[in-house]
């Protein structure tokens, strides 16, 4: 159904960013605009999801140019769900930034660029055109480049160079893949491509193109042989920035993979095997990598990689149940990873270090806050009935149905490694006897902050923790959405019909 207003989540973020730029010098006004803007954006995306749920897939042809000639925006349940999650993470990070981001960074335009990043993410989720997806990816990476370098500390710049180099390479690979795809089919509209690619007779070339897309998205979503930039860069920027990175940036790569490999390239045995092997190795290397780390933000960075593997496994199994598991896990992971990086920021603000060896006695000093932090940590492990459990359950069921015993083994190994790592982190940071840490000059500790800033940081962690509890206890509701999404992914005819109108 045609609906001109589905681009509102994108346009509204741009509007907020422009308003923020006009109030460049007034940092308190910027904070206010950012929080209010994120709240309204959340409202818009909730309305979008309700609308899509009631009336089916909504489309918009930009400029009135009819598909497949113009640029199409499509809001199906999957897109609307991810736009909603982007708005949720955006709100949480915006509120957290009010408390945690230093004024020097606000003066360099932190808030406008944060909103441009969220605009790029919403655009990437809503677009129905493969080249437009490339453009949104570029908007995302250029905003993230600025965010990761803002402040200009030594480690930040070095991390940024690795991040920038790999992401630019990914963009070139993606662009090359689009060029070949356009040469093969003469179309860029994803729904139209779905029909055209099926007609191409040179299947070898189609598979090569598919692999190019896999490499391009693989670098962005940090899967097995291509993830090395992630642990080298995600722990360098301030916690609020790593929160939005850890929560959303890799997930947009996963979204693109789920979309492209169900709609355009329907995987044959070769592709599913490649994806499954990549998933297994991603789970393994992420989990083992996290074991070795001492910096808690690096632990979480490796855990991002490990859990990307779970979502990839869902695509590798390629059945409705497994895809539903991947989608459920995606929902859970966005909320929990954003929260975990904010938690690590809180720990740093209180203790002044990220090192597990130096931290300790957190439970004795801050029992209530420890309880709060336990929620995202144990949701991540997936202790039933917390949110991480249900996605894995669906994945294992899916793998069972396709009798892929090896993959089940790796998923269980990944879960076990996560459990072990979180247990280790819990005993090191929370239960171990505290050490006296020297007060550092350049850090502003939590006790020295104004009450408003303290409340802002706590409020965002509480908000996301309640949400992840909600996903766990309201699993049936999320499961129903995930099953709808998976059904639409497995059978894209409704999507194609909504876009092309035939």
């Amino acid at each position, binding site marked *: 159904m045609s609906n*001109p*207003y589905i*681009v509102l989540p994108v*346009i509204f973020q*741009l*509007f907020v*960013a*422009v308003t923020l*730029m*006009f109030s*460049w010098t007034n940092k308190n006004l910027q904070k206010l605009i950012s929080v209010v803007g994120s709240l309204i954006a959340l409202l818009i995306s909730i309305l979008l999801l309700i609308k899509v749920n009631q009336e089916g897939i909504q489309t*918009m*042809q*930009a*400029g*009135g140019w009819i598909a497949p000639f113009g640029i199409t925006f499509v809001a199906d349940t999957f897109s609307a769900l991810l736009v909603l999650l982007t708005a949720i993470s955006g709100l949480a990070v915006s509120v957290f930034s009010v408390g945690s981001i230093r004024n020097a960074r606000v003066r360099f335009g932190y808030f406008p660029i944060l909103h441009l990043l969220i605009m790029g993410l919403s655009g990437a989720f809503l677009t129905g055109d493969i080249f437009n997806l490339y453009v949104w990816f570029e908007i995302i990476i250029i905003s993230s480049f600025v965010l990761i370098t803002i402040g200009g500390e030594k480690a930040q710049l070095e991390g940024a160079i690795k991040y920038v180099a790999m992401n630019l390479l990914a963009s070139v690979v993606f662009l090359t893949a689009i060029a070949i795809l356009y040469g093969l089919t003469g179309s860029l509209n994803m729904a139209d491509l779905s029909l055209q690619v099926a007609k191409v007779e040179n299947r070898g070339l189609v598979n090569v193109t598919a692999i190019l897309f896999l490499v391009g998205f693989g670098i962005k979503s940090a899967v097995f042989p291509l993830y090395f930039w992630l642990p080298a860069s995600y722990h360098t920027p301030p916690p609020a920035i790593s929160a939005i990175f850890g929560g959303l940036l890799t997930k947009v790569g996963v979204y693109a993979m789920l979309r492209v490999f169900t709609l355009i390239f329907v995987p044959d045995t070769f592709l599913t095997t490649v994806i499954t092997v990549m998933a297994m190795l991603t789970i393994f290397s992420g989990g083992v990598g996290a074991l070795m780390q001492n910096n808690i933000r690096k632990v979480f960075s490796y855990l991002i990689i490990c859990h990307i593997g779970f979502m990839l496994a869902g695509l590798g199994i390629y059945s409705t149940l497994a895809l539903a598991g991947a989608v459920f896990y995606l929902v859970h992971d966005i909320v929990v990873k954003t929260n975990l990086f904010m938690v690590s920021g809180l720990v740093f603000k209180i203790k002044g270090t990220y090192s597990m060896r130096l931290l300790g006695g957190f439970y004795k000093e801050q029992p209530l806050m420890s309880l709060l932090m336990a929620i995202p940590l144990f949701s991540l492990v997936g202790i039933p009935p917390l949110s991480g459990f249900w996605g894995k359950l669906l994945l294992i069921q899916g793998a069972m149905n396709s009798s892929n015993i090896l993959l089940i083994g790796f998923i269980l190994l990944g879960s076990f490694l996560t459990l072990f790592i979180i247990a280790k982190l819990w005993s090191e940071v929370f239960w171990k006897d505290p050490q006296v840490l020297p007060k550092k000059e350049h850090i502003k500790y939590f006790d020295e902050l104004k009450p408003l800033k303290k409340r802002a940081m706590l409020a965002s962690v509480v908000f996301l923790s309640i949400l992840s509890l909600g996903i766990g206890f309201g699993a049936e509701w999320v499961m129903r959405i995930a099953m709808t999404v998976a059904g639409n992914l497995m059978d894209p005819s409704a999507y194609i019909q909504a876009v092309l109108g035939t």
Partner: protein
Amino acid sequence: MKTIIFKSASVYLLPLLLLFSVFILLRGHYLPGGGFVGGLMASIAFVIHSFANGVENTKNIVKFHPGFLMPVGLALALLAGSLPLFTGETFMTGLWMDQPVPVIGTVGTALFFDTGVYLVVIGVTLTIIFTISEGL
């Protein structure tokens, strides 16, 4: 650069190139040209001036921080793009005035969008050039 020919030429080139960039911007609706090219042309005018007279002098000509052009241009483009939404059309649909204006031609939302692009390009390019030339 120290040559006197280049230096005195750059004084005349700056207004000429700026005028030409506006011409390119307006002609872009029917013929090759447009906001991006026009914006680049305008920033090249400033680049030539800075080659001849040094970046400091160019900064004095521009008076305000070129970064300020970015939000102005973005706001203009956003307004032009979302105007059709209020009449129930889709985003970015061109709305045109009935009667052509002398010299410029028919005015539509596309012109404002292009002007926005023009301003953003000037803002971005000058900001980049001023940043790179700092402390060389």
